[in-house]
């Protein structure tokens, strides 16, 4: 269930992250579109203002307010740049028919402007010519030469041509026809160039008017405005979409952050949970270890019990035998003493009857008095010695199994070791000779006696078992040898226990102190002995426990306990100093 939940939440995380990326990309795209759209708007605004400028400048040119075409030309060039000849790629986002319609309009508008420029120029020139003729005609009309009426018609025609209005074209044509029917006021025929310019203005003046009308046609402006409206709508759509994506981005980002926060909280929660479980496990391990230590102790006592029973049984048998002897001897002595009592009574009465004496002799002979007198002290001594042996074992047991205390107390290490050796006697005495080499300088050492005893016992029993195993494999073998040695070192008390057994294979040496590690058959060993030894020496006493072993050459365990009572606790002396005399020189 929890795993399912976890995979679900990682899916949520992945989905949210993807959503954030998608929304982010969409926002980037939208913003880019928006920026582009703003540029397009600016261009459309420019195009619109150019269209207006062109109209205004055309009218200004037509009215003669702005005689130079430069500004008009630049406006058409810019419009051409933006719309006319370029592919107007910047309008790419707009619907194609509308775009091409606008481009078509702009292009034709530019052509019309060019046409207007050139037609206006020549019409204006003809008007200039006619203006001069008008001035002459007015002069002649005022001078009264020829028909004044005709002169005024003439002036009227010219005036209308100079200020040409296409709506009065027919009127002007009638007047011109009227003029042509006559001679000119001064009597000269109308000159060919005069008529040419009149005809030119009539024709091209009308054209200029049409071109101006075309340029002022609002179609281009309307097309631009309609495109602008469409563009505005599109930008609004872009903004709306962008807004939606932005909200989406904020939402999915929030969701992502929430998911991350949730995941981090879950992580923290599970870390707390793990710590709690870990504490529980540690507690369990501690309790189990204590239980195991107790179990190990009980087991060793159990193992030892039969040996100890045997040890007690032997002396108690001969104590019993001796006591039985003494009891019969005391009975016999009682009989003899009764005889002696009868003899003393007879002697007090008179002479001692000989039959009484012979009877006493017979009794003494029968009871072998001499044997009794000789044997009784011996039996007593023997019984006492047996009792001593029993009491020694009992005392050792008592000492060994003393419940001990929580605090370290100054302990006679030697006596403690002796007791342990005694208790374990039955374990080693058939397989090994046990030698103790105690350093008399070692006084009382502060320690937890009961637990230290357990350590020494475990090591001795291990050594004995190793020797027994070795002995079982061979037919004839002298007993092995176990040496228990103490050395008073500077600030330390060293207890070394060596055997000349088979040693420990190199590959398992590093694991001998591991809990539950055992080379014995399943069920035969708990794998706790040396682990407990290590815990007791190192953890509880602050000492060191070393093991040195070589296959075929025996094993040595060295227990070092801090012994501040004697001298200040110095550094742990080099192992070599003890195990290898050759390196001792380096210690100096």
């Amino acid at each position, binding site marked *: 269930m929890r795993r399912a939940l976890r995979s679900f939440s990682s899916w949520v995380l992945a989905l949210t992250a993807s959503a954030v990326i998608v929304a982010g990309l969409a926002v980037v795209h939208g913003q880019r579109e928006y920026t582009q759209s703003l540029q397009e708007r600016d261009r459309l605004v420019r195009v619109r203002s150019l269209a207006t400028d062109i109209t205004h400048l055309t009218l200004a040119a037509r009215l003669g307010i702005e005689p*130079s*075409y430069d500004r008009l030309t630049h406006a058409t060039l810019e419009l051409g740049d933006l719309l006319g000849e370029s592919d107007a790629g910047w309008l790419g986002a707009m619907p194609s028919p509308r775009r091409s319609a606008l481009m078509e309009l702009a292009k034709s508008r530019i052509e019309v402007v060019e046409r207007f420029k050139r037609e206006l120029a020549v019409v204006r*020139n*003809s008007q200039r010519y006619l203006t001069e003729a008008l001035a002459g005609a007015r002069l002649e009309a005022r001078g009264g030469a020829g028909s004044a009426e005709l002169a005024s018609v003439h002036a009227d025609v010219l005036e209308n041509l100079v200020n040409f209005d296409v709506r009065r074209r027919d009127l002007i044509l009638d007047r011109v026809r009227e003029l042509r029917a006559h001679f000119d006021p001064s009597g000269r025929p109308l000159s060919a160039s005069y008529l*040419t310019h009149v005809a030119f203005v009539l024709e091209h003046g009308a054209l200029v008017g049409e071109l101006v009308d075309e340029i002022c046609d609002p179609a281009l402006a309307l097309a631009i405005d309609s495109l602008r409206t469409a563009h505005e709508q599109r930008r609004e759509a872009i903004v709306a979409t962008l807004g939606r994506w932005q909200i989406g981005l904020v939402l999915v980002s929030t969701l992502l952050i929430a998911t991350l926060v949730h995941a981090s909280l879950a992580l923290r929660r599970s870390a707390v949970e793990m710590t709690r479980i870990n504490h529980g496990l540690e507690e369990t391990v501690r309790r189990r270890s204590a239980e195991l230590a107790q179990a190990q102790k009980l087991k060793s006592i159990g193992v030892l019990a039969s040996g100890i029973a045997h040890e007690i049984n032997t002396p108690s048998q001969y104590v019993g035998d001796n006591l039985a002897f003494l009891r019969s001897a005391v009975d016999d002595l009682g009989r003899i003493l009764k005889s002696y009592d009868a003899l003393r009574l007879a002697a007090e009465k008179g002479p001692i009857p000989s039959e009484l004496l012979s009877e006493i002799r017979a009794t003494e002979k029968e009871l072998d008095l001499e044997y009794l007198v000789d044997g009784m002290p011996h039996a007593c001594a023997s019984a006492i010695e047996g009792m001593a042996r029993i009491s020694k074992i009992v005392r050792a047991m008592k000492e060994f199994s003393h419940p001990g205390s929580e605090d370290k107390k100054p302990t006679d290490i030697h006596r403690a070791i002796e007791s342990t050796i005694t208790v374990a006697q039955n374990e080693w005495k058939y397989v090994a000779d046990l030698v103790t080499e105690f350093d008399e300088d070692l006084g009382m050492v502060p320690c937890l006696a009961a637990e230290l005893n357990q350590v020494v016992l475990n090591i001795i029993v291990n050594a004995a078992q190793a020797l027994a195993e070795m002995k079982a494999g061979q037919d004839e073998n002298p007993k092995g040898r176990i040496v228990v040695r103490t050395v008073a070192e500077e600030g330390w008390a060293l207890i070394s226990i060596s055997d000349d057994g088979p040693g420990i294979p190199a590959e398992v040496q590093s694991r001998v102190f591991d809990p539950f590690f055992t080379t014995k058959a399943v069920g035969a060993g708990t794998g706790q002995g040396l682990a407990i030894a290590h815990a007791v020496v190192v953890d509880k006493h602050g000492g060191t426990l070393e093991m040195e072993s070589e296959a075929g050459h025996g094993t040595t365990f060295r227990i070092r306990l801090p012994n501040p009572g004697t001298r200040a606790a110095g550094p742990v002396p080099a192992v070599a100093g003890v195990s290898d005399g050759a390196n001792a020189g380096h210690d100096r």
Partner: protein
Amino acid sequence: MTRLLFASIACAVLVFQAIADSAAGASSDSFVSACAEPDRSLAVRAIPGRHKFDPGLVALGRKLFHDPRLSRDGTIACASCHVLAQGGDDGRPTSIGVGGASGSVNAPSVLNRAFDFRYFWNGRAATLEDQVSGPLEHPKEMASNWEHVESLLARDSDYVARFESLGIPRSPESVRTAIATFERSLITPDAPFDRYLCGDEKALPHEARAGWERFRSLGCVSCHQGVNLGGNMYERFGVFVDPSANHSSEPGMLGRFDVTGRPEDRFVFKVPSLRNVELTAPYFHDGSAATLEEAVHTMGLYQLGRDLAEDDVALLVSFLRSLTGRLPE
């Protein structure tokens, strides 16, 4: 965990803020008006005297402009037909191209082209950049192509170094830009007429001033107007006279008609600028007028419908001679 959170948010912010913004590089080219207060009632303007261009680009353009290796056979440079010291053209009715080939239209001047609205007699090029390919690829002119030019640029270590120092690729685009920029820099300020326009009454001799009056009253200024006295509009050549009698009607000689195909565009040409006009004989699109007097007279007939008197022609010509500016170095 908190740190990771911050990092991821920061990353997201960075990514989403990284919006590409392509800012169009603003052109550094600019002109400064010649007169403090130009007279807007006049159809003409004084030429701006001061201008600013990228000097590296101008120098490269100058070198390209004068390099005959751009042509197919290595004989014709831009400068062969546009001699800067001779008013920006070659003084021939039509120019001589690669292999002695004769062109069909008169070579226009390259001076003051920055103020023209379109290029070629028929206005088919919208910009000087567009114009460059015309003579370069024309079989009767330089008869070259862009592959030829690009390979030349790659072979010439000086070009390689110049393009590299300018940070532009050795592309046709760059060549066009360089030549066009050089051409834009070819401005001839300080003509007597310009000084007159800016208020120096004495700059114009009496005849020239009278010619300027004629120029306006006759209507020349209707078309030869603006900064360049021309170059900002099209006009039909022969408004009152059919030009086909004296001028070729061959395709390529019909002006706008060759571009648009519209009947009303027959013989419609870009109005040429009159600046430095005394240096750019012969005149018209076909170089048919050898002298200024001839050209002015023809213009009177063709465009104004007037047979100009010799006095008027003389006055107009003396005005036209006042349009010669200070030639570029």
